[in-house]
């Protein structure tokens, strides 16, 4: 271990998307030494692909908005499984975080009087998403990157972490390899913040890219941290589906926010038929009412195309099962009939170019063919709401890798605000924790040697398994058995196949040297993807009901008893434990915010409504 490249920081942040950058910025302003490790280039993380906007109750575009309504929308969108304290903190702090970003230089579309303009999005009662056209994520990551690069933290780019170390119970450091040289590097740290994003690469049709292999989820899990809500994987209703080469690429929900409608092959706006009981009375009941809403009539209700993502994805699936789908298994998203060409090009420039270029479709004249695509994981590392601290001392998690905030289904726009709110909190708490440690943790040399052996195993292999073939089989398995709809038999079959893939993984062999070797990178990523896939399938098997993004054909209803717990997974002695974690009782004042009817909701005007919520 003596000749191993070693770096030492008080706080290490793993992942440089929105959450990791915000955490690193916060930590470095507290005057400690901070290292930021990312597996791709700085500024290329998945945040850059976010399009529609960042949700915050600024009340610029509709003065009726406030944090209470945002909290209510988030909890109802999450089908009541959210960590309510996280949802509360998120709704309360998001406006300040957005304003802060603006002050750091972020560009936003503006109201005529110069304030940040907000747009409509699914599940948000009022126009709430601060945005710049349909490239909000790019603006956000660039602003954080530019703000961050003069803050004084060290950046380790194209460096992939494969192991975390502990000293006794507390976190001690991380083991990684440089992607370009393949050399190993050791990071010693008092505190580590995971901000590694999601797991979408475990599915065939996905808006996620090669980086999204569940690294943080798996690292935390193997280090002894709890995972929570892993059964909830979000399938975004609008991904591109044609031509096949672009299948899965995201089409922003902003298209619907700006007036786009969903139609089946018969030209019917089918979403009117899919308003769940929970949202009855809150959405327009006729096309006429929906048109008035689009025209700015505040007495009209929102069109049902703006229902939450879980509901819309399932509706698209149902339309296809009923034989009313589009030729390639989706439905039509049409904004051409709702807005003029100039408006579309101004508000959705990236979508216009994306379809024109990749799909040969002019969205100002023609409808888009779209269908569900794996987009986001609600589940993640179980953290304390205030501090983002995981169940392992010194290990923090924020952004997509953290669980709890979004419950059973995330609202669009709540991810970018989540990154800012909890990125900042994680950075701050990690510093406080690091400062509280009187001695630097030690890393066991034997564990380092073991990590090195494990990472090099694919070169030593005598097996005949190709990592790419294994990846494809894993994706197919998850898509088939743990996708938009699940059954007990499917999930059991899926788990069985995952066990088989685990055995094949031991036989994976890669060729070439360690220098920038994508086959080797896949081989190591597969360990994480398998860990996460087993966690998803296990949790999905154990939640015998349908709720939010988790749909069980054999248990089609939401059951009131199942609202009382989250599923928590722990890895102990090589075994995975799944248990029901009772949900803490919500304070009455928050309960009231949620139970209030679909009328006006302001801070002073909340009344409990004693109605049983069911049929999510």
């Amino acid at each position, binding site marked *: 271990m003596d000749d191993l490249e070693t770096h030492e920081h008080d706080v290490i942040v793993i992942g440089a998307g929105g959450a990791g950058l915000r955490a690193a910025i916060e930590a470095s302003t507290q005057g400690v030494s901070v290292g930021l490790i990312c597996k791709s280039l700085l500024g290329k993380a998945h945040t850059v692909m976010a399009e529609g906007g960042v949700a915050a109750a600024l009340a610029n575009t509709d003065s009726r908005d406030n944090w209470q309504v945002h909290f209510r929308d988030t909890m109802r969108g999450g089908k009541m499984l959210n960590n309510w304290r996280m949802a509360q903190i998120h709704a309360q702090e998001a406006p300040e975080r957005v304003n802060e970003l603006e002050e750091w230089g972020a560009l936003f579309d503006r109201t005529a009087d110069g*304030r940040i303009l907000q747009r409509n999005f699914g599940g948000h009662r009022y126009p709430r998403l601060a945005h710049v056209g349909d490239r909000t994520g*790019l603006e956000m990551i*660039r602003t954080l990157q530019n703000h961050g690069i003069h803050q004084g933290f060290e950046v380790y780019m194209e460096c992939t972490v494969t192991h975390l170390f502990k000293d006794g119970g507390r976190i001690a450091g991380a083991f990684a390899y440089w992607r*370009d040289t393949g050399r190993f590097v050791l990071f010693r740290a008092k505190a580590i913040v995971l901000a590694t994003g999601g797991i979408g690469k475990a599915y065939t049709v996905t808006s996620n890219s090669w980086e999204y292999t569940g690294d943080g989820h798996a690292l935390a899990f193997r280090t002894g941290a709890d995972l929570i809500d892993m059964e909830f994987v979000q399938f975004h209703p609008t991904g591109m589906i044609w031509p096949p080469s672009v299948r899965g690429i995201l089409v922003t929900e902003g298209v619907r926010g700006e007036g786009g409608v969903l139609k089946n092959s018969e030209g019917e706006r089918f979403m009117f038929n899919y308003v769940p009981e929970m949202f009855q009375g809150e959405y327009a009941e006729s096309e006429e009412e929906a048109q008035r809403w689009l025209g700015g009539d505040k007495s009209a209700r929102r069109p049902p195309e703006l229902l939450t993502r879980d509901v819309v994805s399932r509706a698209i699936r149902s339309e296809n099962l009923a034989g009313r789908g589009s030729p390639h298994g989706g439905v039509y998203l049409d904004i051409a009939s709702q807005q003029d060409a100039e408006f579309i090009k101004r508000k959705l420039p*990236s979508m216009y170019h994306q379809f024109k270029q990749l799909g040969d479709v002019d969205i100002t004249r023609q409808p888009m063919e779209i269908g569900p695509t794996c987009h986001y994981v609600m589940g993640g590392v179980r953290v304390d709401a205030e501090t983002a601290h995981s169940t392992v001392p010194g290990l923090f998690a924020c952004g997509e890798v953290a669980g709890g905030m979004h419950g059973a289904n995330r609202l669009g726009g709540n991810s970018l605000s989540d990154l800012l709110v909890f990125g900042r909190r994680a950075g701050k708490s990690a510093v406080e924790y690091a400062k509280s440690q009187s001695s630097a943790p030690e890393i066991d040399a034997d564990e380092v040697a073991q990590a090195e052996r494990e990472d090099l195993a694919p070169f030593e292999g005598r097996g005949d398994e190709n*990592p*790419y073939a294994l990846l494809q089989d894993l994706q197919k398995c998850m898509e088939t058995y743990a996708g938009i709809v699940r059954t007990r038999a499917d999930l059991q079959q899926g788990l069985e196949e995952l066990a088989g893939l685990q055995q094949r993984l031991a036989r994976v062999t890669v060729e070439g040297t360690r220098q920038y070797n994508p086959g080797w990178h896949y081989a190591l990523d597969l360990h994480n993807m398998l860990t996460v896939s087993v966690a998803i399938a296990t949790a999905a098997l154990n939640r015998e009901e349908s709720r939010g993004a988790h749909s069980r054909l054999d248990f089609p209803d939401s059951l009131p008893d199942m609202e009382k717990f989250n599923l928590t997974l722990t890895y102990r002695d090589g075994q995975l434990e799944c248990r029901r974690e009772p949900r803490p009782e919500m304070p009455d004042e928050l309960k009231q915010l949620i139970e209030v009817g679909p009328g006006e909701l302001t801070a002073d005007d909340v009344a409990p409504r004693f109605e049983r919520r069911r049929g999510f």
Partner: protein
Amino acid sequence: MPEPTITLNVSRYRPPDERVPTSQVYTIPYRPDWVVLDALNYIKDQVDGSLSFRWSCRMGVCGSCGMMINGEAKLTCSVFLRDYHPREILVEPLENFPVIKDLVIDMSDFLDKLKIVKPWIIRETEKPTSEGEYLQTPEEMDAYMGFSACINCLLCYAACPIFGVETDFIGPAALALGYRYNQDSRDEGSNMRWNVINDHHGTWQCTFVGECSVVCPKDVDPAAAIQRLKVDTAKHWIRSVLLPWGKRA
């Protein structure tokens, strides 16, 4: 009928075993809906797992997959095989940068250049966040919005003949970024940027070839930004004698 194919002639470089780049020819199935990136991923996944290149979003926003395609700087996620088929496609790493391996370039120098133009809002006095956002009208935003869409893909550096011979040149994207902040109505820091922009590695090295704007996939138009910076620099020199703090004109 045999399945149609297409041939990609791909630059390979594997130090320390290879001292100079070589090329390798791959003939793969031709699919008209594939972009060059799809073809490269097909090669990596099905033919040769050792081929290295960067990519991520597949939708032209991350700026990772820039390469030279038949000698032109392009995002490989945005150029179709059908535009070349049945001809061979030559794939090389971005021009003007050191190559790490195969199609992967060393761009660490670029991040340093971004930093020196101070790409953040600089204010005489900072306003507390609790007071809300800085006001900026849609018209004020339009003044710089076009220059803010850079995805750091480096195509403009690969196309710039000046950068090709003078690597200290700050270059198109970084100068456009500096201009973007100078034009931002919220910013009062243009004074702090002039010394860099006016430096001999700054705007004055540009001879207005304009290739940067031609290759930009986001229509940022760095060439226009640089020309306007030159005009502003001249104006600034006169004004700086009269005004202590760089108020915007």
